[in-house]
């Protein structure tokens, strides 16, 4: 994104701000899942802003991400808890989530918050989100609805999350573990995927705010 005349973070901030405002305006029409997405977008906006300030004042923004990851684990767990309609294994599910959060905090605690990018924590986050998004794809296939797929808000939420976290998992996990000299443009792809994830959330919120598309409950 260094080739862009406008810095990437300004584009992202503007987009997140627009998304948050649209979400807040349409909040009454939105489903619980979309409301959660709005909360996440606002938290992301704050995180991105604080990270930039940290980078400016302390030349290092890694501590922000150490704090952000446990929040992300909690958020995506809540999101998929809602969309997957988990009823039977609530205790197992939340115990697993607690284990992931604890692991992430322990890793952050054992390594210096400063100057150390939480790649492992991201891998922990991805290893939770990746199977959950796959499970949701499976649920969609076994409980289809007659609405066109491209008009289903949950499809966009899941596809955006799935693509982004798959890329994060492979780029951070695979390359970091192989200690390869990753070319810097690979991180541009990651930022692009991040942007695409928010774009898919934007589509989902717009679709969800139209009542005729918001009925996603499968009728078996």
């Amino acid at each position, binding site marked *: 994104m260094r080739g862009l005349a406008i810095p990437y973070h300004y584009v992202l901030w503007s987009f997140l701000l627009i998304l948050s405002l649209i979400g807040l305006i349409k909040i009454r029409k939105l489903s619980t899942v979309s409301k959660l997405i709005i909360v996440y977008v606002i938290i992301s906006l704050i995180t991105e802003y604080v990270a930039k300030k940290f980078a400016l004042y302390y030349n290092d923004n890694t501590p922000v991400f150490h704090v952000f990851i446990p929040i992300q684990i909690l958020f995506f767990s809540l999101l998929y808890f809602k969309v997957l309609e988990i009823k039977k294994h609530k205790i197992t599910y939340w115990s697993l989530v607690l284990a992931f959060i604890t692991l992430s905090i322990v890793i952050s605690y054992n390594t210096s918050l400063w100057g150390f990018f939480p790649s492992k924590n991201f891998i922990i986050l991805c290893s939770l989100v990746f199977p959950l998004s796959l499970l949701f*794809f499976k649920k*969609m*296939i*076994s409980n*289809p*609805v*007659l609405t066109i*797929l491209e008009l289903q808000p949950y499809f966009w939420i899941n*596809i955006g999350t799935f*693509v982004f976290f*798959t*890329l994060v998992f*492979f780029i951070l996990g*695979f*390359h970091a573990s*192989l200690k*390869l*000299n*990753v*070319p810097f443009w*690979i991180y541009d*792809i990651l930022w692009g995927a991040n942007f695409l994830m928010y774009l898919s959330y934007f589509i989902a919120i717009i679709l969800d705010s139209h009542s005729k598309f918001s009925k996603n409950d499968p009728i078996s």
Partner: protein
Amino acid sequence: MILSANTDIITTIITGTLLFGLLTVFIIYFILLYRKSQTKLHFERERRKRELLQAEVEIKEQTLVNVSREIHDNLGQAAALVKINLNLISKDIPEADREKVTESAELMKKLIGDMRSLSQSLNGDNIRRKGFIATLQSDVDRINKTGYVVVEFEHSPERVSLEADQLIILYRIIQELFTNTLKYAKASNVLLKIIEEGNQLKVFYSDDGIGFDYQTALNKGSGLSNIKDRCAIIDAKLYFESQLNNGVSVQITLEKPQT
């Protein structure tokens, strides 16, 4: 060092391309799979809807048969008894009153006749016994007798080769069309035409009444939606054409079973 960096870049490009390829394949595969399950769901819903409509029609048909039996067995018998009594009384009363009683006996005779035709038209079994065309002819004659409208009935086949259940439903559709004409159309003439064309049975129905707006009528009452639902049950294609003050024209096309 440079060699190692180049190898890393090549590895990155290869794994990256593979990853993107896999993601694309996965998403396309998911979309195809989802569409397949949507089609399955669609057919399942259609099947259930048809079954439900079928059950509804069967219940209605059974109710009509019961009402028909009740009219024929109880009301018909009672009316016949009243008629006999009136005839007996007429012999024992003075001449001056006899005319009134005879008139009442005649009215009772007409009532018995009407009840018999009504009972026959309500009972779908008559189609099995008398045949589809003959039952329709009786209905047409009955309507013509009322003098409200003139029904012209044309038919090329003497026997319609459809399943008995299909014929009963088709008969009910035509009855519904007659009812609509008599109740709302203010028509003077009705044409009912049944023809066979190749492997198809075609029913044409038209009247010269006041017509209606199809969508408004569909939302308003159950008559038109009944016709639509019944056509769906027997896999008949329904074509409606109507404009205000321009009468109505209906075409129902059915595929005949392969012999």
